């Protein structure tokens, strides 16, 4: 066994032991917190070093277990794709643990720390095993462990009814998503005679009907986890309910395991068919634009971030679609640009979305609310959190010189090459990526200007916001580290290229790194450095000009009005209104209003919520159809035990006849 794999495997007992100890110390909050966090930090650090080593050395190995399950041996392995995802998992979770040290210190109410840490460590382990697994059985077991441990984290604050509802919603969504995955592996494993990935890869003919069926099942099952539109409906419910260090990990890496699953399935299926790529591009466009529009409409900071995850998953889907189109056409440059851009965006989104969720957690910590319109003016009260959140906001909007730009740039270049080099039909599809990505970028910028501006700038809108204070050291360290990584990848993307080189080549099916990638990335470095120099130059010119001059402080200009109140500021809803106006028809307005009765009405209320288009227009009717279809089976359910026994008997007879008839 290589050192890399041993290190990664060694991190598992550390995390599990630490989590168990923390659970044993249930009654002693401080002790539980310290053991849980220290073990979490150690475990992720060891795992991270292993993953990094595996990436640098390009380790490829598989280790089978000595013990056997009833269905065969269990095996784990390392290859560049696994190492890359392990790197993302351990990095984002490590930052999450650092953040949790301070975050869990002051929990609201009588909540206990231990479950938040024990299940967190379990979640990290199960995610690591998902990507390590080399056979379907272990994969599905770890997948289920991941769903369950995150379910307990989502329902951590179970005293609130909304949290319990979100938890149940999440649990159901996870298990609905599991059904296509079980089908997928049964379908693939049956002809292969084994559930090992190696055997499946050898037995599956590329491009056949089996491969297509497998791809569609994987798209559905993994798509639910990843949050593709329209099966993302669980995501904006579950992610905001979880504690913030967990939301950061769920949005940052857990949903990316859906992407991992899809990519892993692709490696099992050989050369993909071109139309799979078209499907992913279409999904990417809809998820991206739909996600960001819904994000703009939100007034809850964490819900906004959850919807923006749907948008970013859309960008990743665009990259994957491009990669598949390139691969199917035998153009490894386009394939690398697509898959590489998608992978880079997986890492980048993990970093900035983790950072932003942590920022949201800090805001909640300091003010007790995540309602955008109750906040404001936090930049002065929480300067470090504010600066980190601003960095994350600019990064998620895909602006240079930050990391979000780099991944999108690779996808842009790939899409352009698709137009130039591929046949017209494929070229039109890759062309569609360009305006879509541009629109998503523009809307994301508006969305995050709103999120950052309404929360951190202006005057505080409530006393709670005015009384806010900067958060603990550990939380600040985690956020600043995240922001620093965002800048580092933006300025020196060659470092990140080293990380995606291996898995990108694996997916693109060619070991050669296309020269255009290094060329573009070194250009990014030059542009980023030039930009930073120019900003420094302009800032010093401004400083020198103002140094000897009179600089005064006064009220904000309000057409001569000198006594504005914070309530006169533009709110989140008013900011979003202008942007959403052209997209008015896709939203369903849920309005609750009343109280304006009689000649002299006293109190009135108006509550307006923009519904989720997918939930209102797609999922709800679909569920209605299902319910009415199942209603037809109601005649089976009459409550008499004897009748049920008859059904059981009949079923057994039918099965026997079917099986015996087959022989």
């Amino acid at each position: 066994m290589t050192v890399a794999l041993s290190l990664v495997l060694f991190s598992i007992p550390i995390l599990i032991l630490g989590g168990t100890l923390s659970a044993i110390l249930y009654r002693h909050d401080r002790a539980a917190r310290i053991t849980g966090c220290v073990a979490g930090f150690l475990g992720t650090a060891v795992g991270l070093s292993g993953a990094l080593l595996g990436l640098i050395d390009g380790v490829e190995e598989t280790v089978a277990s000595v013990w056997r399950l009833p269905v065969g041996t269990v095996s784990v392995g390392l290859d560049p794709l696994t190492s890359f995802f392990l790197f993302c998992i351990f990095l984002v979770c490590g930052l999450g643990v650092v953040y949790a040290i301070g975050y869990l210190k002051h929990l609201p109410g009588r909540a206990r720390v231990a479950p938040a840490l024990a299940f967190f460590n379990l979640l990290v382990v199960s995610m690591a095993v998902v990507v390590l697994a080399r056979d379907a059985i272990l994969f599905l077991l770890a997948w289920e462990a991941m769903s369950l441990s995150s379910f307990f984290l989502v329902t951590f604050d179970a005293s609130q009814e909304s949290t319990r509802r979100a938890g149940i919603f999440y649990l159901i969504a996870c298990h609905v998503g599991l059904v296509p995955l079980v089908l997928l592996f049964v379908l693939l494993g049956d002809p292969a005679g084994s559930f090992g990935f190696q055997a499946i890869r050898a037995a599956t003919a590329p491009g056949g009907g089996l491969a297509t069926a497998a791809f569609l099942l994987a798209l559905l099952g993994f798509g639910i986890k990843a949050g593709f539109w329209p099966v993302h409906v669980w995501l904006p419910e579950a992610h905001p309910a979880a504690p913030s260090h967990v939301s950061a990990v769920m949005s940052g890496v857990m949903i990316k395991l859906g992407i991992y699953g899809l990519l892993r399935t692709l490696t099992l299926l050989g050369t993909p068919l071109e139309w799979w790529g078209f499907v992913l591009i279409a999904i990417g466009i809809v998820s991206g634009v739909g996600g960001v529009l819904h994000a703009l409409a939100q007034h809850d900071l964490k819900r906004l971030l959850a919807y923006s995850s749907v948008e970013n998953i859309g960008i990743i889907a665009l990259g994957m679609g491009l990669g598949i189109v390139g691969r199917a056409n035998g153009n490894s440059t386009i394939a690398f640009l697509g898959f590489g851009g998608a992978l880079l965006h997986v890492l980048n989104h993990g970093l900035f979305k983790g950072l932003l969720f942590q920022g949201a957690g800090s805001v909640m910590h300091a003010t007790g609310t995540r309602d955008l319109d109750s906040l404001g003016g936090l930049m002065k009260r929480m300067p470090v959190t504010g600066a980190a959140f601003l960095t994350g906001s600019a990064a998620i909007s895909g602006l240079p010189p930050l990391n979000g730009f780099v991944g999108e740039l690779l996808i842009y270049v790939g899409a352009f090459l698709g137009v130039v080099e591929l046949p017209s039909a494929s070229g039109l599809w890759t062309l569609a990526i360009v305006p879509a990505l541009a629109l998503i970028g523009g809307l994301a910028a508006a969305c995050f200007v709103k999120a950052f501006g309404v929360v951190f700038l202006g005057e505080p809108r409530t006393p709670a916001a005015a009384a806010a204070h900067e958060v603990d050291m550990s939380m600040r360290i985690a956020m600043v580290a995240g922001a620093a990584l965002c800048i580092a990848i933006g300025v020196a993307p060659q470092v990140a290229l080293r990380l995606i080189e291996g898995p990108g080549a694996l997916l693109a099916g060619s070991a050669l790194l296309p020269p255009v990638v290094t060329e573009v990335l070194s250009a990014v470095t030059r542009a980023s450095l030039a930009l930073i120099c120019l900003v420094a130059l302009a800032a010093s010119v401004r400083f020198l000009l103002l140094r000897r001059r009179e600089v005064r402080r006064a009220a904000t200009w309000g057409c001569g009005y000198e006594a504005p109140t914070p309530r006169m500021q533009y709110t989140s809803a008013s900011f979003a209104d202008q942007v959403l106006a052209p997209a008015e028809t896709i939203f369903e307005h849920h309005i609750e209003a009343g109280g304006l009765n009689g000649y002299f009405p006293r109190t009135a209320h108006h509550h307006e919520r923009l519904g989720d288009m997918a939930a209102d227009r797609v999922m709800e009717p679909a569920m209605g159809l299902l319910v009415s279809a199942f209603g037809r089976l109601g005649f089976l359910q009459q409550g008499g035990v004897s009748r049920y026994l008859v059904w059981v008997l009949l079923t057994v007879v039918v099965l026997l006849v079917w099986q015996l008839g087959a022989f």
Partner: protein
Amino acid sequence: MFDVLMHLAWLILLPLPMLGLVTVVKSWIAGRRGPPLLQPFHDVVKLLRKGAVYSRTTTWVFAAGPVVALSSTVLAGLIVPMGSPSSPFGFSADVIVFAYLLGLGRFFTMTAALDTGSAFEGMGASREGAFAALAEPALFLALMILCVPAGGMSFGEAFAVLPASHGLLRSPGLLLAALALGVVLLAETSRIPVDDPNTHLELTMIHEVMVLDHGGPDLAFIQIGYALKLFVLGSVIVHLVLPIPADSWTGPAAFLAGQAGIAVAVGIIESVMARLRLSRVPQFLIGACVVAAVGVLVLFTGGRP
């Protein structure tokens, strides 16, 4: 070396007079004499010599707005060729970087506006965000039309190929791209019919209202950046419309004439049109996206290399 110096000289000397030319054209059409061509230059110098007043609500984000907006536009200006097919800072995929640099400047202008806590500025930022997002696909589609014949995503490659093989009149795709870019220019630089730079009512402004609280050197930075943006976007259109040869004399001359033509065109549009109602602006911008998309389709059916 000479090319680089000339590029820098133009970047420093020409944007503000170009803005002046727009005003002069508008005045002529209205039957007035108008301010001197160098009036914007005098304004900026005056602002640079002033102190500043900051709102008590603001933080460093407010001060960062003009600084980032100006420097990102300067970098965009270094990327776009001016009068010769190459630029001092061109690289592969610089077209995308160019578009995103404009986005960066906008992002920081919008955050600086929200930093004042004023409803007016929030309004301006919200409108800017909405309209910019809609203009973005048009910009990218037009840039694609520009780049596909050259097979490379940099202005240098695109402009080197254009005059030789794809004259504007021979390729309707390019004509549509120029049209879309023209709309993007009007939207990005907040000119009529999207926004009126001369309005005095805060409620109807877009760009002006976002920078309402800036004064002194900050406002000077904003004015310079604004003029630069007009100049830079103008030079993309000029290169697209005029076949600019890689010659050391005719190229720059054609370029200057083209830029002057754009200033005159902006002035004429501004004199003969009223601004659109705010709710109409998205339709105007989506129209530009459609025009650019049709241009792409034309490219696909006829003009693919």
